[in-house]
């Protein structure tokens, strides 16, 4: 993978036009699965695939993101030369005015892209959880006569307002477009593609000239001239674009099969920033069932089918069921929660009872 450089974009806001007013759960720094953040997945995947140079697009969340990623050391991406790099988003993106598959952010960094020595660029979004072996995909699909390789997956999450990849009867790439209606898309574009550096530069220059800053439009125009392939990713990959999908993704990790596919792949660990908290302490009357817990947690009450983030205290006589409890939160005595997302740093006072429906989990912050 010496030939490939990685770029991680933030695609979350583009799927989020409809739910402006609540915390955007698809941001790269969104915490997930007890101890990770969304950005950990594309970073770890690229690092594990042998990509040595990775650029992360910073946006409105740059402080949180740079604090979490740091030097990239935790991902093995700290190098004296190259390694991890930060890029800037376009002003319009910063203001949440980007369009689907917008090329603005890449265009803003065209100087950086032009100077890249690698032959291919792997562009990835940052609002999904998956453990992807990019090296395998690249070696199998990309090494010969391919200008661009788009990754898609079956839309088993039934997401709407997404980019649809269309194939012809022979399975050949036909089109990619943003679906604005309330129809369910079959092949979901994974915001991830390999592209020859020269093709990307050519695309960005054309976009700049024409003012049409949508990748979809460009691809439609040139699909006879360049070789575009589509690759179906069939392993577990879950998109986070709303509190609902956020809740579902966390709960999915309670399935040991999915957990294994993501966190127990030989040589493909998911990395994250260390917390240096002591291991989980269980009190004498703790009862815990089918749950994920991590460092710093102290459990005295009952926890069932839940995902507990770092440094959470659950005190005596409290029951937590089908919940997500964010970092540093304290659940006092005699609290009963069911189907609830507790944001980080919350304190739920004693004798509180909160129950919501699993289809529409309540978010407390």
């Amino acid at each position: 993978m010496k030939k490939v450089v990685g770029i991680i974009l933030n695609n979350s806001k583009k799927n989020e036009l409809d739910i402006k007013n609540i915390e955007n759960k698809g941001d790269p720094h969104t915490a997930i699965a007890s101890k990770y953040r969304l950005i950990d997945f594309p970073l770890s995947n690229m690092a594990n695939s042998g990509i040595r140079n990775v650029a992360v697009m910073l946006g409105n969340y740059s402080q949180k993101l740079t604090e979490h990623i740091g030097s990239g050391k935790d991902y093995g991406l700290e190098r004296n030369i190259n390694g991890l790099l930060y890029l800037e988003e376009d002003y319009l993106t910063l203001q949440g005015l980007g369009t689907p598959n917008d090329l603005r952010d890449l265009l803003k960094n065209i100087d950086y892209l032009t100077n890249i020595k690698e032959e291919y660029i792997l562009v990835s979004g940052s609002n999904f959880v998956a453990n992807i072996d990019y090296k395998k995909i690249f070696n199998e699909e990309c090494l010969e006569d391919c200008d661009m390789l788009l990754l898609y997956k079956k839309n088993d999450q039934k997401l709407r307002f997404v980019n649809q990849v269309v194939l012809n009867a022979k399975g050949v790439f036909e089109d990619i477009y943003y679906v604005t209606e309330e129809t369910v898309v079959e092949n979901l574009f994974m915001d991830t593609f390999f592209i020859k550096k020269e093709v990307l530069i050519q695309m960005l220059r054309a976009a700049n000239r024409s003012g049409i800053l949508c990748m979809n439009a460009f691809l439609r125009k040139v699909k006879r001239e360049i070789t575009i392939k589509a690759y179906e990713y069939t392993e577990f990959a879950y998109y986070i674009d709303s509190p609902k999908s956020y809740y579902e993704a966390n709960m999915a990790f309670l399935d040991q099969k999915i957990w294994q596919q993501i966190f127990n792949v030989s040589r493909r660990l998911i990395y994250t920033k260390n917390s240096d908290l002591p291991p989980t302490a269980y009190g004498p009357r703790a009862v815990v069932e089918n749950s994920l817990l991590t460092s710093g947690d102290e459990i005295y009450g009952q926890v069932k089918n839940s995902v507990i983030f770092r440094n959470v205290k659950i005190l005596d006589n409290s029951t937590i069921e089908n919940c997500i409890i964010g970092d540093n939160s304290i659940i006092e005595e005699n609290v009963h929660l069911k189907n609830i997302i507790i944001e980080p740093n919350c304190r739920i006072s004693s004798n509180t009872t909160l129950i919501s429906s699993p289809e529409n989990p309540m978010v407390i912050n």
Partner: protein
Amino acid sequence: MWKKECVAMILAGGQGSRLGVLTKGNAKPGVPFGGKFRIIDFVLSNCKRSGIDTVGVLTQYKPLVLNKYLANGSPWDLDGYHGGMYILPPYMTEHGGSWYQGTADAIYQNIDYLEQYQPEYVLILSGKHIYNMDYSEMVEDHKKQGADITIAVIEVPWEEASRFGVMKTDAAGKVTGFEEKPKDPSSNLASMGIYVFTYQVLRSFLIDDSQDKVSDHDFGKNVIPKMLKAGKKLYAHTFDGYWKDVGTIESYYEANMDLLDRKHASALFLEENKVYSNNKFLPPHYVGPSGKVQNSIVADGSKIFGSVKNSIVFSGATVGEGVHLEDCILLPNAVIESKVTLKKVIFTEDSVLNEEDPIAERLTDYVRKHSSENEVSIIDENRFFSSKTDGKGFVNLKELLDIG
């Protein structure tokens, strides 16, 4: 090289033969502890907490695992340009090489290392203690008293005092007498093996001691008594927190179990004074539908499908369905999948009891029969040790079953 006010030297070379099979491929400070730590994490984290950024780690016995774990010191923020952590093994000069003969000799052989920093004070520490202490207070005391050496002491029960070096002090804390492991202790202030030396005094006593052919070159046995005799200013600095020397299997077991007591755990893991470790990247731990965890400590990366009570489950360990553990310690990546019911057993790192293992059936009975209240059993690669026999012998469980 920049001058440093205080440089710490951690004695981490001991074989720790009384830890038996736990140190078979690893020096004592590198032994896992407390779910996710290794013993040396505590003294290194104390250094970070105390603002000491220049630390020599003196190694000698099987240092591969420890060296790999310590890596570049960055987990403890000891990878700075103007200090940092340096591993100091024995080395060869134009006059040949010599191994470290005792605690004082180990420091003596690294006087060149200390000279580089021209420190005012040298802090001598041990890599086998579990505690959370701010050394800067002790160094401040040392400065204020104008002492030549300040020795950290802790009050121990009188009946245990004879196991330690004990100190008699006057009201001001000045040491008036020192006895190494006395039969009839005249004080219960035990030396913790933590010393602040004024560097120039240390230097001259070490050079002197190196010439002394009858000396064991040990701080407690030789250097400190010599200093007392020479009329140097020895002061005691009293520590009243949690402190444990994990030199034997029993004390190692006890210190782990102490973490189940929230009082001790909070003393060690104070909010602002974290204990840092070189963590592997482990996912959260999972307690399955059939799992049950009570009054225990469980580290990341482990999976629990059985029942666990009053136990410590280390990183990456697995407790299978139908397994019942009480008062047990599962060291990293131990896997127990055969349906056993065990009490007071330590499973060593990477040890495995498969589901189909024929041992399972008999093991529960065997352990119950062959261990007593005051005894800890150890299971390591199908070998069974008891804390009473370890270091001397073991029972091969496979053979036992053939016979049985």
